[in-house]
């Protein structure tokens, strides 16, 4: 049995070489797959907490997320072979007309780090593409991002279209000009002011 807390530390520090090596060693040492996954997720949870409290910034999150991604590349085939899949699937995108992606990408990374299956539709995404992706991937959650005030109506339109389509999915919104009041007004299920909060809110929404 490995000391998986060292793997968690490697993720927290964004040390990808150590993270990949320790994941590989844990796998070849026969560690429980759930425990390895939990060690990785714990690392990213810590990254999210420190990002939220401004102890670390976007570069550190990107670096930790890369360590997580490369470790998951080792772990994922074993998880799939054992029939273990992420419990929840999230579709994420920046709303139609908006081309900003840093915030959306950070949320996607944090959700992957929290072991969500994340389907990233990119930027300038139409409501139809979101609904199609929700159906195709049987998603539990949709994340919508907007940075421009001009695209806030597009976010409202996307939420309305999702509701009208009848798909059973929770919708979380965020982005620079978005507020909790606006999220409620347009009928979203949740609002997150930053990427770390998006993990907490997403977990609450899919558990509800």
């Amino acid at each position: 049995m490995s000391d998986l807390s060292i793997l968690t530390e490697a993720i927290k520090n964004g040390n990808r070489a150590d993270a990949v090596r320790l994941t590989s060693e844990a796998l070849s040492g026969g560690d429980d797959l759930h425990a390895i996954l939990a060690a990785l997720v714990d690392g990213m949870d810590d990254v999210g907490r420190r990002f939220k409290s401004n102890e670390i910034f976007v570069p550190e999150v990107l670096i930790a997320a890369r360590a997580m991604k490369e470790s998951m590349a080792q772990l994922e085939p074993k998880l799939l072979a054992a029939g273990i899949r992420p419990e929840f699937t999230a579709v994420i995108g920046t709303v139609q007309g908006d081309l900003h992606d840093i915030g959306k990408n950070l949320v996607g990374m944090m959700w992957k780090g929290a072991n969500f299956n994340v389907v990233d539709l990119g930027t300038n995404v139409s409501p139809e593409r979101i609904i199609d992706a929700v159906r195709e991937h049987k998603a539990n959650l949709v994340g919508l991002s907007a940075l421009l005030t001009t695209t806030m109506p597009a976010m409202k339109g996307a939420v309305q279209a999702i509701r009208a389509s009848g798909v059973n999915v929770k919708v979380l919104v965020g982005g620079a000009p978005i507020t909790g009041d606006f999220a409620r007004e347009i009928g979203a299920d949740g609002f997150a002011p930053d990427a770390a909060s998006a993990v907490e809110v997403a977990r609450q929404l899919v558990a509800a």
Partner: protein
Amino acid sequence: MTSFSRDNFERMLQRRHPYRLPFDIAFTRPVNDRVLEHLGIGDPVVAFDLDFRAVAAQYKDDVAQWRAAYSEHGIAIPAGYDIGWCGNATAPIDRSESAQAHHIPQTFAPLSAISSVNDLKSFPWPDVQDDKAFDHLALQVSKIQAEERVAMGLIESTAFDPACSLRGLDALVYDLHEGGEIGNWLLDFFTARSIHIVRQFCKAGVDVIRLGDDVGTQRGMLMSVDFWRQHIKPRLVSVIKEIWNSQTRRVAISYSSDGDIRAILPDLVDMGIDIIRPMPPECMPIDEVIGQYRSQLAFWGMIGTQSVMPFGTPEDIDGQVRHLANWVRRGASIIVSPTHALEPDVPWDNVSALARAVRNARL
């Protein structure tokens, strides 16, 4: 009114009884069309009697060479994307009335997968010292100043932003974190370009040079202050030193970053920055910042494009301008401007209310 623009701007910067609030505003094309429709004048600087006109370098680049180099390296540029100076790849902006984002193109980072500096160097990098890019500058500046308007040299993507555009934020961050040469080479290349541009701006006699890179976010710095000090600050310092060395009379230096950059304001003051912009009130407590730095910095912007411009009333805008004028009476140095180019969701009444409020403000 414009006959006092330069003098008034200088008085404002020196806190020496300015006559009125200097005013700047940038429009997206649909709003520009509305200016023409409502005022019958196509040039917003004239229509709103703005105090500033911009000048910039006009580098020419061999786009075909860049396309060939991308092809040679197996880099697939998305269909329909334009290639610009230094191989920048952007989607054409949707200019239709129904489009929602008029000032920001979709970008593709063509150099994200390059793995060695030698590969990087093999691209057809233009000569940043090419003086042909500045042939127009002296005449343009003298015309602006003959109108008594303020000539501002724009180079707001000084080093970090253009490096990000080519390499991608994530790859650039990995480079810099791991001491990789690629990120540093790109930052150095664009710093050298900026140094040459500011030298030419000074030679042409501009009144203000607007430097900048977007290093802030809605809730704080994009990167840690240590990271900024290590990778960005020294390059910015070298550009500022070039301004000091090249200026034949005092050129004001502005630094622009979206978001909340309070954490680096003490550094920017030490480095000799004169003006901070755009001071978005949705991200920064502007009264706190002005109160703290009013003897060291001038402040340009502060009319929120995420709040009061699209969602406020003309009275709200008038109140915000009066508030800023009050700061001038308390010794602050203020240039009023929306914090970003106005998008089509801004009501026309708010645009005209802003112009009216600025011109009616008592100092």
